[in-house]
Each structure stands twice: as C-alpha cells, then as structure tokens.
C-alpha cells in the first residue's frame, strides 16, 4: 500500500514536472508546478514528516505559487511559439547541468545506501513538536538569521516597486 502510494506520487511528481517544462502557456506551467508541490507533500506524508508536508502546501502552493500566478495574470504574457528554442548555448548548459545532477544523485545514493533507515527504525521526527524543538534550540541561529533574510526581502520588494508607487501618485 505504502509502496504503491509512493510510486503513484513519485510518478505524478515527475510527470507534472515534465509538463511544467514542456507546456507553452504560462498558466498551465504554473498549474503543473502546483501539482508537483502536491505530489511532494504527499511524499512527505508517506515519510511521516507531517509538518513539512503541510508547510509545503501552505508556503509553496498557497503563497509562492499565488505570487507566480499574480505575475502571469498581471503581465498577461501572450504566448509565442518557438521562444524556448532561442538559445542553444543555454540549452546545452542546462542539459550538462542536468546530466551532472543525475550523476551526483546516483553517486550519493550508492554511498549512503547502507546508512538509510529501514522501516522499523522510524521515530516521530516529523511531528510539529519534534521539528519545533530542533528549530528553536539547536538551530536557533539560522532561525534568527531567517528573520534578517525576510527583512531584506521586504526592503528589496519596496525598493524595486517604489519608483512605480511614487509615479502612481498624482
């Protein structure tokens, strides 16, 4: 049952990711990305990482993708055929990166295969309490630095859009 769910969700994630890359319309690409996020959330649930699963949906599907959708809706990009095939150098670069990535993942899998936890060893590491108590004690510094990062993002957003805002005023 668990294995079947894993294959369904994994296949769904890969398929929707492929659709994301190949679809011509920006909205359809965004929809595929949301589907990918859902499949990933499902995989997290299978791993008993409940908090990460729900945050995956809350943050990626619920916030980041809404921002993407806003950009698509606000700009109303008219789809043009063949724009993707424009730069062959970029394409070659991306494919080299992709092949390299596959090798890195394969190599690391071979290396850690013995160290992976098997079914019986799972402990409640994915609950809110477990994740939270790690985050707020052991990883305290990264947590506080995250707030600085978010502050930088706020300031950046205001600076980027500020010229437009003062233009809009009569």
């Amino acid at each position, binding site marked *: 049952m668990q294995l079947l769910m894993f294959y369904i969700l994994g296949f769904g994630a890969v398929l929707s990711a492929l659709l994301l890359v190949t679809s011509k319309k920006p909205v359809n690409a965004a*929809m595929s990305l*949301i589907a990918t996020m859902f499949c990933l959330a499902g995989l997290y649930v299978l791993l008993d990482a409940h908090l990460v699963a729900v945050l995956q949906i809350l943050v990626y*599907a619920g916030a980041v993708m809404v921002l993407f959708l806003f950009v698509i809706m606000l700009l109303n990009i008219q789809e043009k055929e063949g724009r993707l095939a424009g730069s062959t150098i970029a394409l070659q670069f991306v494919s080299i990166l992709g092949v390299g990535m596959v090798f890195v993942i394969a190599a690391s899998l071979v290396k850690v295969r013995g160290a992976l936890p098997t079914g019986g060893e799972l402990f409640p590491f994915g609950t809110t309490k477990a994740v939270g108590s790690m985050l707020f004690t052991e990883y305290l510094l990264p947590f506080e630095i995250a707030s600085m990062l978010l502050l930088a993002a706020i300031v950046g957003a205001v600076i980027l859009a500020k010229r437009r805002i003062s233009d809009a005023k009569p």
Partner: protein
Amino acid sequence: MLTWSLGFLILMVKLGAVLLFLLLAAAYLVWLERKFLARLQVRYGPNRAGKYGLLQPIADMIKMLTKEDTIPEGADRVIFLLAPAVVTVTALLMFAVIPFGGDLSFLGKRIPMVIADLNIGLLFVFALSSLGVYGIALGGWASNSKYSLLGGIRGAAQMISYELSLGLSLVPVVMLAGSFSLVDIVRAQEAYPFILVQPLAFVIFVISAMAESKRIPFDLPEAENELGAGYHTEYSGIRFGLFFLGEYVNMQVLGALVAVLFLGGWSGPFLSGPAWFCIKILVVALVMIWIRGTLPRLRYDQLMALGWKVLIPLALVNIVVTGAVILI
C-alpha cells in the same frame, strides 16, 4: 479483517453523513439568508415554493442543473471548468479535521466524531483556505472578461492579505492549547471557552474570516454595481452553483471554526455534542447574515488598510501580550 472492514464502514458512514449534511445545510443556509435578510429589509423573501418558501433551495438546484453551461468565447476551457470545483472541494475538505462531537462508543469500539484527527489540523485548514484563492483568481482569469479578471485579482489580493491576520490571530489559541489538533483545542477548553480569555483574537479572527469568505462588508471581488458579478460574471448553471455552494460551505466551516476555537466546540449542557455544535454554527451564521444586513461595503483602500495596518499589528501585539501573561 473484520475490525478493518468495520472501521472502513464506520468511516464511510461518517463521511457520507458529513458531506450530505454540509451540502443540505448549505442549501438551507441560502434559504435562511434570503429569508432573514428580507426580514431585515422589511421584505418577505422567498415565499412561493412550498410553505415559507422552504422548497426554494430545491427549486434553485433543479434550475441550476437544467440551465445551459456557457463558456465565453476566448476562455481557457479547462481552467474555466476547474475553478468552481476548486472552490467547492477545498471548502468541503476543510471539514475533515473539524470535530463535531465527543467520542461515541459503539459495539465496544471508541468512535471519534471527527473524520481525521490530524496533529497538524489547524495548519491543514490554513493550507486549504489558502488554496481557495486559486478558484477565485483562475476563474476570473480564465473567463476572458474584464469584470471577471478585475474581480479575480481583487479577490486574490484580498484573500491573501486577510489570510495573514487569520493565521496570526489564532497563534494565541494554539499557545493556550499547545496543539494544532482541533480535538485537543476543544479539550483544552473544558474549564472555560477561549473567547473569555482571547476576545481580541476572536474579533480579529471573525473579521478576517469574513473577509476571507468575501461576505458583504468585504464583497469587493463581486461588487455588483461596479463589476457585474466579479469573478463569476461569466459562469452559468451549476458552475455558478458550485461557486455559490463553496461560499456557503465556507460559511459553515467558519461557524464550525469559531465554535471549535473559541466557543468550546461540541461541549454544552443537556443536549448531545453534535446538537450543540450545530447550534453554535447556526448562531455564527445568523450573526454573519445580520452583519450583511447592517454594514455597507468597504472601499478597496479601506479594506487593505484594515488588513495590513490594523489587524496584522493587533494580532502580533496579541501574541506578545498572551505570551507575557502566560509566562508571568
């Protein structure tokens, strides 16, 4: 095998009962709203179909099912079809984590009166309510109409703004209960309902939730005198019906959440758990209809200012004060 199939049977009965109840109650909530609103405005409201117009929801349902479903020219067909379903499905699914009664014992088995008691229950509700934005934004966008697009974008911006105050206003409640599980939150209110200790959180939550469900003081996405009908201008038949259904299921979810988080959930004297739960939902719904009959619509700048400059800072202050009070 036997216990497994018994468990499955119980689950299906619960699911069927909850879904049927939600759909029926949504239909009659529409009737209640029309009737009560009419009374507030010194009108009769629906009174032709059946006694007191009680058959009106059924007549409406038949009408919507037998109408032609038009798709405007130039619309994105798939997304246009999908958007209303997103609104309804996310609203219905939120009820999966809401407990509607205490445990029941049946054949020596303990049956919890909740479909799934997830330990991240409240976050599950937040996640689904943030997905509701897609139905509005995509429905407006896919219609290829100016009014729909304007309504969709307004609606999306409004919903994401109020989602923040909605989430932050509930942090003190979670701090008091120490859990996201809605069952645990109800259990934590055995001594006193949280509305007594968290009145500010209650007010922020209700205002944000009403903005989130786009009801009248906050109905700018469908402001009929500017935008036709906003994001669902181009929808006809049952597709419009699904938007409508989603809205009224949302109203019940809101009532249920207010009951679970602030009014002590299913607990109450004399009556059984589910009965108290329904009464509490009904009271919240009636207050919302009353508010609709009383308040005029906000301007868009007032809407944004209320969300970002009043509710979010207030929710943050409430978190700090609650934390300080609990610790000292």
